[in-house]
């Protein structure tokens, strides 16, 4: 299987005219999760009758937006062989910073969002320096930061914040050409991520560093700066997702906001075919992973599945999705 996924990553590396001609079938073979997702949608539509209603789809998209915004940079980070487990706490800190600036400080929404992004970038930079330049284990460092940043958020903002004003509500509630602003932002992040991987030299370097760091170093590639930048971008993205959540909810709570978010994002990333060992993955896969999680959650709610069954169904669907994605390419080869 490792060869299967890496092979697909490699083939995807250079989208030539031949690859385009091969068309949808090839895409399906590379992204077996697409089939799983289609199956899931079909089942939900047949059983609820309202799953595909525009209103519901809009809801799913809005819910999945924050997930996608963080999943894309995190996927790039994982492809380069690193990991960030602190995004849940960074999201909370971002949400509270944005809310505090927009609410208590009565700053303009732009200042609030920029402030949140700066805080997120700072957290990412700390992660990046420790992991990339000092060579500490990303698992330990970001796990530590998960706790530390949460503690910081609670220390700074022990109270729930709310009432951020109408201007700030624009970020989460505005419609741009009929599409919710968070969805537009998520779409932009997805496109940017995909273009970055496919069409920039640094995007190629991300793969190289993840596949074989030593070989990349000996090839003259800067093996520290690129992952460092990805840490910063991931932190910034988490803070942006936090600001969006704060705007949508018009409130933020330091203790619970974004709790467990890091695992949800990581699940989406891994489900999307990004290897935790680094070196392979695609933005399309991440999108599918995010949509899979979003549809699953929404569909189970629509079906009014009792709480514990819902938990179980989620777990089973995750494992099944991962298994299909895992065995799919092998059988088609």
């Amino acid at each position, binding site marked *: 299987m490792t060869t299967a996924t890496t092979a697909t990553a490699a083939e995807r590396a250079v989208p030539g005219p031949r690859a385009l001609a091969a068309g949808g079938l090839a895409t399906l073979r590379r992204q077996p999760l697409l089939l799983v997702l289609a199956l899931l949608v079909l089942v939900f539509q047949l059983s*609820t009758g*309202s799953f595909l*209603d525009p*209103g*519901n789809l809009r*809801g799913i998209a*809005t*819910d999945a937006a924050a997930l996608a915004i963080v999943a894309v940079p995190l996927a790039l980070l994982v492809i380069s062989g690193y990991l960030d487990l602190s995004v849940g706490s960074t999201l909370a800190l971002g949400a509270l910073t944005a809310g*505090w600036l927009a*609410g*208590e*400080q009565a700053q303009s929404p732009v200042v609030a969002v920029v402030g949140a992004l700066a805080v997120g970038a700072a957290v990412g930079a700390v992660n990046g320096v420790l992991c990339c330049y000092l060579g500490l284990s990303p698992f330990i460092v970001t796990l530590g930061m998960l706790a530390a940043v*949460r503690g910081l958020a*609670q*220390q*700074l903002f*022990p*109270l*729930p*914040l*709310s*009432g951020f004003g109408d201007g700030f509500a624009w970020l989460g*509630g505005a419609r741009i050409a009929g599409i919710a602003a968070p969805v537009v932002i998520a779409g932009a992040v997805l496109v940017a991520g995909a273009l970055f991987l496919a069409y920039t030299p640094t995007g190629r370097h991300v793969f190289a560093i993840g596949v074989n760091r030593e070989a990349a170093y000996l090839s003259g590639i800067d093996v520290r700066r690129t992952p460092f930048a990805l840490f910063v971008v991931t932190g910034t993205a988490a803070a942006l997702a936090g600001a969006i*959540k704060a705007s*949508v*909810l*018009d*409130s933020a*709570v*330091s*203790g*619970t*906001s974004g*709790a467990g978010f890091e695992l949800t994002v990581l699940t989406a990333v891994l489900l999307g075919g990004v290897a935790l060992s680094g070196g392979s993955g695609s933005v399309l896969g991440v999108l599918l992973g995010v949509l899979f999680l979003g549809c699953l*959650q*929404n569909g189970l*709610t*629509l079906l*009014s599945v009792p*709480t*514990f069954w*819902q938990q179980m169904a989620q777990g089973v669907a995750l494992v099944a999705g991962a298994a299909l994605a895992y065995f799919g390419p092998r059988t088609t080869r």
Partner: protein
Amino acid sequence: MTRRPYFVAAASRRQFLTWSAGALATTGLAASGCSAPEGSGSAKAAGASPSPTTLSRIGLDYPFTQLPLYTTLVKLSTAAATKHDVKLLTTSDASNPDTQATNLNTWVAQKMPAIVSFPMVFEAAESIAKAALDAGLIWVTYGGTLENQSADIQFSFREGGRLLGEAAAKWADEELGGKGKVAFLVDNTIELGRERTKGMVDAFTKLAPGVDVVAQEQAIDPDTGLSKSNAILAKHPDLNIVLGITDAAAYGGFKALQQAGRKKGDAKTFVGGQDGAAPSLLAIKQGTFYRASSALAPQDIANAIVDVPLAVAAGKANPSVQVPVKLVGSGDTAEIDALLAQNA
């Protein structure tokens, strides 16, 4: 479990927040208000206060440190303890039952004279409570009852749910003619949640049998409340009522309805929650369709935390306390201001 009692709280604002002048919208509201501070709740134990005979220290073990209420409780009960020349100490359990057990055992070994503990796992706390009693210490159970204890501080979780359910049913009867659609955001994972859920659902369905129950979904935080409500709204755009097991979850539902196009003051919509959380209280006060919250007053709880151990030490009969829960609606401005002030 860990997010259980989602109270509004406000705390020692600590060094940082000193420069963050106006917290929430509550700044202007003086801490006056009619009810609360001086102990409507600690009625039974109230007489115990003047005798701090032997008690020099009280240990407060409230495990859910991530909740805003933690900060509020520590602040208010420290103040209450100081009034009695008692020193209040706290644990930092970080919602971890193992850490809690370790911390409690340490206190028992150190002979902390009085321990007020909210056990995450009641069965696990029993042996520690027994050890405390055997060592001649005072053990006060918070939020429940153990076999081995000196006294307890109880909350009627079912009562809180019932008050909310009845208010919503009454509103449905008056505004919707007893018809319409309701969604419950509930919690089945812990005892306290099940109590609140049962009180709320039973009271509502009994008094408003004509209203369709279209959903009953697990949600205790705003994020989940929002996404669940979104899904429910996709299927039932004409949803009238969302009742939450916590104010946090209900607040998510409140936002979902607004984002689905509902005006803030929509006359045919009712959202209600429990706890008395600040964002919800503010929404109620502003006259939105967030119309009610079953609120506990943090000051009442803080008073009980200090008064009950003192009452036990003084040898009072029936030292236990039931902290009252009160439904606040849009008319209860003074009540809301008082609650917000306690949190600030």
